[in-house]
């Protein structure tokens, strides 16, 4: 297979990251992601769905870090998304690392939960499932194009307790302050952890993209924080490897919200690496080392960054 194209800016970034193995990263771009999914316990018991899949010739393996998460060993079709179980809403195809942020968020039945950047809905459906359709989930996105797939995915999943909104995420920190028990802030990013899905992200990456997006990411995280009740839980996550979109954003939150606390989060069965404490002359808050971080080649899956934050109890 030919070597994937990388922009100059991305090559420079890879060489400046002290914990990055450039060759392993490039190699990971050429490997497809494992096929993974969640079973929909809103519709049927997990064992019933697994039995139904087995009857149809599926062979699956449980994922240790995701309740209801499985890896496809064998499927009835080449594309699990084109199967009857998927189209009936009994399973949801979702990347393995993509399931991690909601596991960190750990939403419970009866709570008020906000998914700030929800489209197309994989994490919203995961939240609704863990809430057992009890309590309220507000699934928001700022993109009018992506709202339709969000609505249709929530429909297919059977998420009865869900309100879908089309708003700039900053609305919630201003207009719904201290409302939500948990807030997921899975932000738009440079996607450098998922370049195996689309090489264009690597080919077209420019440092300007990061400069433009990190201000937005910080403002969304501040909004998420302000929308959370005192004592609430916020998860900030990206699928990129760039410290300015990860460690820097969390550091800035800690600087601007002095009652914020980072909680350590270590999902079972996953290789994790220690976030950076400094980079390009910038020092990050030592608390960021409690965050979850992995590069694509760490788990033969997506690269992800997940920060689990608790809001102070109030003054």
């Amino acid at each position, binding site marked *: 297979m030919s070597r994937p194209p990388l922009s100059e800016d991305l090559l420079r970034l890879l060489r400046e990251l002290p914990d990055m193995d450039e060759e392993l990263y490039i190699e990971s771009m050429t490997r497809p992601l494992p096929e993974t999914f969640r079973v929909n316990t809103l519709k049927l018991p997990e064992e019933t769905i697994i039995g139904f899949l087995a*009857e149809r010739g599926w062979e699956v393996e449980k994922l240790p870090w995701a309740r209801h998460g499985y890896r496809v060993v064998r499927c009835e*079709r080449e594309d699990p998304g084109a199967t009857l179980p998927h189209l*009936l*809403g009994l399973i949801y195809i979702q990347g393995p690392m993509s399931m991690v942020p909601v596991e960190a968020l750990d939403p419970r039945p009866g709570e008020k939960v906000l998914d700030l950047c929800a489209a197309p809905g994989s994490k919203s459906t995961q939240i609704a499932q863990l809430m057992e359709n009890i309590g309220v989930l*507000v699934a928001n996105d700022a993109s009018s194009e992506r709202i339709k797939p969000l609505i249709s995915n*929530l429909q297919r999943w059977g998420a009865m*307790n869900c*309100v879908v909104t089309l708003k700039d995420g900053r609305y919630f920190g201003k207009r*719904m302050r201290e409302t939500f028990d948990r807030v997921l802030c899975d932000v738009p990013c440079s996607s450098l952890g998922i370049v195996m899905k689309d090489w264009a992200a690597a080919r077209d990456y420019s440092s300007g993209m990061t400069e433009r997006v990190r201000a937005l990411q910080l403002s969304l995280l501040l909004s998420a924080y302000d929308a959370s009740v005192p004592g609430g839980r916020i998860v900030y996550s990206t699928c990129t490897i760039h410290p300015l979109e990860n460690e820097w954003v969390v550091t800035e939150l800690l600087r601007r919200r002095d009652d914020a606390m980072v909680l350590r989060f270590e999902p079972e069965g996953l290789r994790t690496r220690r976030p950076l404490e400094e980079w390009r002359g910038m020092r990050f808050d030592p608390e960021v080392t409690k965050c979850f971080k992995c590069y694509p080649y760490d788990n033969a899956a997506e690269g992800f960054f997940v920060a689990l934050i608790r809001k102070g109890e109030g003054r």
Partner: protein
Amino acid sequence: MRVLDRSERKALLEELEKAFGLEELPQDLVFFEGSEGKVRASTREAYEMAQRIARVESLGLYVLKRTKFGTYLSVEGSQLFGEKLRRNVVELTAEQLERWASGEPLDVSELSLRPEGDFVVVRYGPVFAGSGKVSRDGKVHPQIPKERRVPVE
């Protein structure tokens, strides 16, 4: 969208009782009628949250549609009410389920029971798979949106 009041809920239940033998609507759900006869349902708490937010794009789930031919359940509606339905619920074989899910009509003659009305709900064991319209040509046509049909290989 308009919330169905008590008398409208009662009327809806009568339609569902006549079509599918449903005896009760879940008390913890709010029902709304939207355009084209589509009825949605959500939890009360979700409904109350939606009242607090300026402009909501969607709330809850689409569960059934009222047409001039009668009322039928969406895929999620059939799954929501499924085990409580007492009439016009057809058990499919594995082979029939595959054909159904691809959008192919089934012959009434091959069904496990004779439909009594204009619509049936289908199931395969615990898996409910939406409604079908019984037509004069002796077929049952799946009322599954095209984007949710299994592509034929």
